[in-house]
């Protein structure tokens, strides 16, 4: 479980670096900066960032419970 008290004291950059690594975080921010420079904003930028995060992240199954409802109700 992530420690929320600590998370809230970090910057977005710290969180990115701790989640995907420093190199990937820098690449990600560079890509976002490039998109902004090209004029991307609003929802387009939001979707773009989400896609890039999905590409960068190799999140483990930290919160996965078989006894949680979304699974049970599909039986």
């Amino acid at each position, binding site marked *: 479980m992530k420690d929320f008290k600590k998370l809230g004291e970090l910057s977005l950059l710290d969180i990115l670096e701790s989640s995907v690594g420093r190199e990937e975080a820098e690449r990600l921010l560079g890509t976002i900066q490039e998109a902004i420079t090209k004029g991307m904003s609003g929802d387009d930028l939001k979707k773009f960032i989400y896609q890039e995060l999905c590409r960068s992240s190799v999140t483990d199954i930290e919160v996965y*419970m078989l006894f949680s409802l979304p699974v049970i109700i599909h039986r």
Partner: protein
Amino acid sequence: MLISQLQKTTDCIFIFPPCSESPDSSFNYHLGSAYIISYLNTQGVDARQYIHRDPVNLKTCIAEILGLKPRVAGFTVYDSNYSVAALIAGEIRKSSPQTSIVFGGPCPSVHYGFIMNSCAFVDACFINEAEENFLEFMKQLSSEDFNFDKTDFSGIQGITYRQSGKIFGNHENRTLRNHSISSYYLDSYPSPYLGEIIPATEAHNTGIITARGCNQNCIYCNCAVLSNRRISAHSVDRVISEIEYISPHQKGNQILTFQDDTFTLITKRAAEICNAIIRQHIKVRLACITRCDCIDEALLDLMKEAGFVSLTFSLESVNPITLRRIGKVRPAEEILSDNLEKEEKFIENFDRMAAYAKKIGFQNIVTSIMVGLPGETLSEANRTVEFVENNKNIDQYAHNFLKIFRGTPIYSNYEKYGYKIRYINGNPIFLKMNYPVDVIRKVYISPKSHLHSKKKENDKSTLSILSLSVKDIKSAGFTSIILQSDHVSEKLVNWLKDVLSINGIIIQIYSGEKPMKRLSDRNYEKLTRYSSPSLNIRNYFLKEIKDASLLLSSESVLLKSCEEDDNIKICSFEYFRSRLDEPEANFLKTFCRETDYNDSVSACSFLRDTGMEKDPLTFLTRKKILPNFASLCKWTRENANCVNRSTLIINDRSEVRFCWQGNVSGLVGQPYRELISSLESEMNNAKTRRKCDMCKEESNCVKCPFPFPLPEMEYCTAKRISNVGQTAELIYALDQVKQFFC
């Protein structure tokens, strides 16, 4: 050829309404009904699933279902979607009396008597497995041109039905019971995946089943009762062909779940499935439920190699005497013998298996416990929680409170253990437990529990709703309402049927903890009694702290998690700005509202100053995580609730608003269309008044109709001459990082 093929009708539409505990409001695939559809299709019956991915309101949902012209509407019903299923079914009956309405699934398998007696619009309930019985039902019905009253259903098993106002039934259902496990009788039902009833890309949501039924003796569970303690299985070849077909469609971290009650009940068969996956080099990530007495090190090794990454052990208690009473390890006894050797061994095994699974690299080890079990003392219950908390091999656990369901072995004699059950509105599907000891308040809930995860997810989604930063979804109706009132009225519930999407989120904010504790049950009763389109309710109350307020939830009270950083904090913009650079400040769960003119000016200048930084992106990513803002939307191009119309705010005078600072757009009871017209009129008036058509920012501005407390002209000037809009859009976009990782 059935008559539907000539008249462009559909023989049967299966409907799986969203469940109230689920955050998902869509009408999705369901593995159980997909099995039936698959079977019916191969026998020439035109059956399909009603799918609606986005939130949908009652009116649109009914129109879409009836647009398919179903002869039969079949509902998959659980306790947690019964209320919505009944609401939709009732509306279908009103609009299309000729459509037969059938309920099936776990809830009607137990509560068929209550459902048939209390819901005149339900024509039939199916009990337990329904593939063959439903086919017979459809054949009989079509042979009488779908005239329900004329049809002879007397030869069908596992059904109760209504004809000419009278209820008949043949409740016995022996379909799967007459076949041995080794006959692989389940293979006679075609695969919902191979038959493309469920797309393989959906398998991470729906899972697969390798066997049905349970042969255990747990007195609190219905699984063994409903299956008559028999197991019916698919052959290994069939299981492998499904996994082989699905696996290339699994993306990234997606997991395919075996939905069997306990996958390893027959260890030899589980090993055969694992060996076949390994032999055929299938790459797949798998999860299942198991028991520590149905698994060993060798099987764990095989499972790991086959691709299992997550295991859930059902444990329930670490007190041997409790395990003995609930029949977890062997049949329960009325008079307990002294010998608890098997139960002690069960607990030892649990410890050993969890440790071994962790050692060989399973990523996620979960267990389930239950408190409030028969004869259990508070210290015994707390001992179980402490055991799980201190066990470093357990990543998470499900903290369940015993619920005594009708049909379970304990239901016949629960009173002798001191339990009391109250039915909400006299409905046995909605029960409220009263325990002999106060397990709800006096048993410790560890941070490893699923209840803590649920609180975290709920708070995150509530923050998003409060800040009116809605998702980009096309919705019929509002997907959430914020109710700032202690009360729920009949008028409100009836109105929700028009304005709120099915299973939409209801955030009720009480004036204090006492009103919440006193009134939340009563309000829930009203929502069920008057058939709310959603029972997806989150109860909160406000608590004042120094310079801010806390929004505490009913979960905060249950989890005794009422500290500042654990809950949603509501503050002014100035509060946030003055603390932004303090090392210990934390805005992760903060909702920031502009309180007065000065606060609005401060917010505007923060956005302007940030925009003037040499590199705003770098500036913002190096700052502490920002709060969720109530009024940031006014600076964006279109990211506002007045445009997306996703959330409604209702106060205790029944006044309805689209934004925190907005004018009243209507009253509870006014039709959806009228509310939208009123808002549009406000927006058009604002545009005309401000001459937005002539403004250079016209295409980049949301043209907020309610910029208060900032005067209109100051709002327009700031938008025209500064870069506040760009900064606001950037903050919105970067919020994705927070949503993704926090």
